[in-house]
């Protein structure tokens, strides 16, 4: 069964460093998402991506964040200068079609900023 794959599973980084979280969405999907979940809190939408551009982003997704689909298969989330409050589980998701279909999630990357 096709699945969304995320690497690494756990990333520890020092405050102020750049991190790149990687995702391989399901191959024929067209819509891509990043979500995050701070420990004990809700799953929060960060950004959606379609046709090689951001289609929507939340208030959380400020100038420190960027997304890219560099080679047609990977979908990356970059945090330019990490802060302690960026520590969270980051989930990538992909969706085949806009609207009335489900999104499939990866297993997540636990980011710890120290």
């Amino acid at each position, binding site marked *: 069964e096709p699945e*969304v794959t*995320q690497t690494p599973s756990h990333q520890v980084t020092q405050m102020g460093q750049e991190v790149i979280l990687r995702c391989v969405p399901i191959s024929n999907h067209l*819509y891509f*998402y990043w*979500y995050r979940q701070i420990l004990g*809190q*809700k*799953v*929060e*939408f960060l950004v*959606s991506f*379609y046709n090689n551009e951001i*289609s*929507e982003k939340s208030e959380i997704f400020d100038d420190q964040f960027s997304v890219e689909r560099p080679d047609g298969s990977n979908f990356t989330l970059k945090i330019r200068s990490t802060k302690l409050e960026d520590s969270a589980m980051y*989930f990538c*998701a992909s*969706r085949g079609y*806009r*609207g*009335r*279909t*489900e*999104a*499939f*999630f*990866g*297993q*997540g990357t*636990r980011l710890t900023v120290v």
Partner: protein
Amino acid sequence: DQQVKQNSPSLSVQEGRISILNCDYTNSMFDYFLWYKKYPAEGPTFLISISSIKDKNEDGRFTVFLNKSAKHLSLHIVPSQPGDSAVYFCAASVGNKLVFGAGTILRVKS
């Protein structure tokens, strides 16, 4: 901006009984609703969905009910099993956007 709300943070149910998880939403533009199940240290797993043009969708032990006038949906699990113990997220979709509720922890006791 809490467009999707799950007001019960947790629910405890005896094995074999019915579990009912509730969700309310505020955005009348949402046209598709989903339930996801999540275990610790794993990503959310899709469970069941319902289109806004329906009021019920059933898949095995899982049934989702939608009351558009009340902007309310619920997930029924019957009979509940210990393996159903997890966090359940309600989500709502309009266009490209998928918004999640805060989740409800379900514990099924054997």
